[in-house]
């Protein structure tokens, strides 16, 4: 990557050239939105109590000990962080950010630190330090790009994760995230957008009609079908905003003939626990598991959503039975497999624009899903272009770590968080930007709007839906019999009677 740490003037210039008049500088950012009313004087004690309780029951002590022992303060991580690259403020260097929490750990939870602290009389946690941590950990988008650049392997995204966890235990957490989680865990509809089940059913019926009209094939969105191969969880916002993504996914299933289902008791993949609290994450993931088990499904399939996929993939085994837990698959993996097996016919003449693929951090950072979507896209998008850096080394959209859900900081996300991404998009000159993640999509669309970028942001399956070509037999069959039996979509494949 060639970008240099920008100078003070460069930074001012960068901020000045941004179109939005209400440019917000990091230091002037009003971060009070995520500080709930508390007795401020009591916070250091409560912070340490929460920290201690978490250390007692988790594995974080191992990481903190290792990190405090090896950290060399070399500053290499600075070049990796899109936030620091945009602000040039040393307080945004990943190692500085992690240092805030590591210092508290060292001072209050290690013998050496306590002795040193007593002698020098410094380092004690104060209210200002808590404020600084709150500010800093929510400026970070937890994209974990800096971890790749650290020669000593410090995962600053993990420290941000832990820092937010402790803060949330003393009530410091973005309101937007809490509101969504409350709706999901305590609300009547068990999803973050409080979509009632009848509304969900209306939506999928509407989508079915649309697909029938557009593709002349009757494709069903199965709901509550027990014993399906795949229990599907989309980020609930897809049902409100991403019709094409969902229709693309349904089309892929129509083409493969596999049985799948949505569960009406829990159909939301979103897990904001990842962004601020492990206990919340555990509760949400357990509900995904119980819904899949209620329906007697064989695999959990997560839709186009980076954080939800990573959470399910990594933490379903953690919280729901280790090696006996249900396997987790992301929809891109499923579609890629279907494509490789030759089950998808994608018309190469439909998408003629310049297409680029944006890697969601949660899918690409650990090299989980990097090449699969590219292979499929390149097979039918004639004009495919790459952004660099990409894959495991991609640049965050600027809305990661839950930032995108917080509308109050849109300005921050647009001018600072998404600055590098916007430059990257502009440089690659794509007309269609594929982002297979609900959070990335929202952030990137806002970026396109606010930064005047010349492209359209779509989901991966939006393009699949556009290009998928159902063979004649399907359509003939549909004329004879308008009920979809997925098994009949592939001549030669036995119908197992599931998924109806």
């Amino acid at each position, binding site marked *: *990557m*060639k*970008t*240099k*740490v920008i100078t003070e003037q460069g930074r001012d210039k960068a901020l000045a050239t941004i179109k939005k008049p209400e440019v917000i500088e990091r230091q002037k950012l009003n971060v009070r939105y995520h500080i709930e009313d508390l007795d401020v004087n009591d916070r250091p004690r409560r912070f340490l*109590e*929460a920290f201690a*309780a*978490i250390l*007692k*029951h*988790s*594995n*974080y*002590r*191992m*990481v903190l*000990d*290792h990190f405090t*022992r*090896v*950290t*060399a*303060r*070399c*500053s*290499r991580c*600075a*070049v990796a962080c899109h936030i*620091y690259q945009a602000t*040039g403020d*040393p307080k945004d*260097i990943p*190692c*500085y950010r992690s*240092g805030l929490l590591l210092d508290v750990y060292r001072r209050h939870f290690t013998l050496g630190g306590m002795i040193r602290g007593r002698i020098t009389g410094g380092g004690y946690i104060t209210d200002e330090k808590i404020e600084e941590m709150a500010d800093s950990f929510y400026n970070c988008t937890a994209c974990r790009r800096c*971890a*790749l650049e650290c*020669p*000593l*392997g*410090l*995962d600053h995204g*993990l420290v941000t994760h832990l820092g937010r966890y402790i803060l949330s*235990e003393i009530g410091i957490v973005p309101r937007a995230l809490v509101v969504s989680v409350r709706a999901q865990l305590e609300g009547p509809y068990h999803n973050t957008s409080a979509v009632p089940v009848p509304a969900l059913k209306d939506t999928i019926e509407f989508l079915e009609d649309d697909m029938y009209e557009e593709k002349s094939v009757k494709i069903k969105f199965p709901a509550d079908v027990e014993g399906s191969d795949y229990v599907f969880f989309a980020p609930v916002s897809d049902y409100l905003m991403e019709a094409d993504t969902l229709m693309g996914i349904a089309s892929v299933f129509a083409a493969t003939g596999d049985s799948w289902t949505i569960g009406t008791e829990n159909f939301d993949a979103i897990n904001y626990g990842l962004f601020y609290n*492990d*206990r919340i994450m*555990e*509760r949400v993931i357990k509900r995904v598991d119980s819904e899949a088990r209620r329906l007697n499904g064989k695999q959990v399939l997560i839709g186009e959503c980076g954080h939800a996929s990573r959470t399910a993939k*990594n*933490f379903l*085994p*953690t*919280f729901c039975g*280790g*090696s006996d*837990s249900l396997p987790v698959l992301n929809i891109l993996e499923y579609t890629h497999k279907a494509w490789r097996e030759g089950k998808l016919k994608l018309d190469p003449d439909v998408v003629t624009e310049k297409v680029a693929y944006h890697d969601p951090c949660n899918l690409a950072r*650990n*090299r989980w899903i990097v090449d699969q979507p590219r292979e499929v896209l390149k097979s039918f998008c004639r004009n495919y272009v790459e952004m660099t850096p990409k894959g495991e080394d991609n640049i965050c959209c600027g809305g990661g770590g839950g930032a995108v859900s917080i509308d109050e900081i849109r300005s921050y996300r647009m001018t600072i968080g998404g600055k590098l991404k916007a430059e990257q998009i502009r440089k690659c000159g794509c007309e269609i930007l594929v982002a297979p993640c609900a959070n990335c999509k929202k952030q990137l669309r806002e970026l396109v709007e606010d930064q005047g970028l010349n492209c359209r942001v779509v989901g991966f399956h939006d393009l699949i839906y556009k290009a998928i070509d159902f063979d004649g037999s399907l359509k003939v069959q549909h004329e004879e019999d308008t009920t979809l039996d997925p098994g009949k979509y592939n001549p030669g494949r036995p119908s197992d009677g599931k998924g109806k």
Partner: protein
Amino acid sequence: MESLLHFARGPLFRLCFMIMLLGLARILFLDLWEAYRAYRKAGDKKMPWRLIVRRGLEWAFPMKRIWRNPQLYSFVSILFHIGLILVPVFLFAHIDLWKSAIGISWPALPFRWALWLTISTIVCAAVLLIERLSVKAIHSLSRGQDYFWLILLLFPFVTGFVCANLKIGAGLYQFLMLVHVLSGDVIFLLIPFTKMAHCVLAPFSQIIDALAWKFPPATDQDILETLNPNH
């Protein structure tokens, strides 16, 4: 002076070296013990070994990183580390010392190589020091020990270079030799107690990173009860 030098490169060296070995063994043991306990507690025990090994190797042999942004800094710090590792271990004069201390020896670096490595290490340390002082990002992160180490590491290299390559009087030679050996002893002594511990811990970072995301199952209730005993 002679007897002092003898003491510094004899008993004192052995003492410092022993402290270093024990200290490093201690933190290595603690680190790995904690990792083992974390693994035992983890709800998901499947480790991404391929990724761990690949990333570990990438840093052990940082070819890809030599000319990465920030280029000069990357290049210089990698070269610096090469010198730091090779010269003390493979310089022929040191091998004699090692032999007398621990009784084994190994092939030495050719003299010219050792000379150039010494010079490059000195230059690299100087460049790194200047960068720490002048580049905003690095300067703002630096603690006392970060400067201290760069300066301390310069001592044995500069004195060693002068003694081995320049014609100097016997008195000065002895004095510089004493500085050389003493600074080496101090370095050994301090390694386990400072950031230099990374020399043994860094190879395990990727494992620790992967393990870090392996949480114990069902901590929700435990933490809740610890925080609200009357809950």
